[in-house]
């Protein structure tokens, strides 16, 4: 191991980094300040209930078994032959968008909302937000 010749540039140049201290930090100070999520972000599901036909294509394509088809109390779409709408288990979902791709009436979508935090693990079973 040698120190010769003295690496003067290597000793002095790093101090240029101190200049960064004079710049104003560009930190995103969440939660005080939020960054806008990209418009096409793949967040939690939305479902246009007036269009959903309850066909279970989304359930079929989901490899994570994350989608249940559940009977709804009040019907919103007369063309919904099964009377069921998808319910998503966010303990399974991987936000891959495949269910959205196969949706025949294009009712299912992924919204921009993406943050859900809870103390209990059984609060991750949602009906998608109604987008109609």
């Amino acid at each position, binding site marked *: 191991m040698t120190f010769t010749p003295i690496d003067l540039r290597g000793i002095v140049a790093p101090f240029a980094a101190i200049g960064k201290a004079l710049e104003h*930090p560009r930190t995103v100070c969440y939660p005080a300040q939020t960054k806008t999520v990209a418009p096409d972000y793949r967040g939690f599901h939305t479902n246009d209930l007036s269009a959903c036909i309850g066909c279970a294509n989304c359930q079929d394509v989901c490899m994570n078994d994350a989608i249940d088809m559940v009977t709804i109390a009040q019907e919103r779409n007369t063309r919904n032959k099964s009377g069921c709408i998808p319910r998503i288990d966010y303990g399974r979902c991987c936000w891959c968008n495949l269910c959205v791709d196969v949706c025949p009436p294009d009712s299912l979508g992924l919204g921009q909302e993406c943050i859900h935090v809870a103390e209990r693990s059984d609060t991750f079973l949602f009906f998608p937000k109604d987008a109609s």
Partner: protein
Amino acid sequence: MQQGLKQIEGLRQEGFVPYHTSLTEEVTAQQRTLESETEGLANTQTLIEKAIHWFQAHSMFVVAYGTGCGAIEMPPVFTSRYDIERLGVVGVATPRQADILIVSGYASLKTLRRIIRTYEQMSEPKYVIALGSCTINGGMYWDSYNTIKKLEDYLGVDMYVAGCMPRPEALIEGFVKLQAAIRDQTLEPGYVRYRDDYAWYRRNQEKVLGKNIAPQYEENYAGMELS
């Protein structure tokens, strides 16, 4: 507690609950009232206890253990883009010094042993944050033979963060909520549950890991068994 569970079930049974935040907020609000009625947890703290809880909430040491893929969103959280040190959260190297264990995503069986060992070395009060779908109900590895499905069966988990992977904001939100819960003492901490129901947790652990939970650090570990 039990009653709260039933209420959630009831809400689900009704069928149509339009939007997720309303569901969770309602449920947690109901749970809160139930808990404070039955157990009287809140509002009984003395001033000193309040101060201590405040300090505990505003100083959190996270043990550096990236157990799964969620570990990749931890560097942005801890560095200059999101800078969680603003909230008093810093990373430390060893479990002895730490308060928070982040289980970042799926835990394979081999990792679960190490997680349990890490968790048990941490000094109380300690909290667990579970990141991602995989810790809640198996996530996309729900049919994998080597990952556990529900982390809560094996450890006392305090906060779940949805996502695969969760955004850095979601992780910070998890910390913020945990801080609020510690400060106001509104949660039944996971370590208390783990201590009180140890037999149950231990049984679950033994079910998947066998009788010897501790990792095998015997001499010549590498060449131990030739099959």
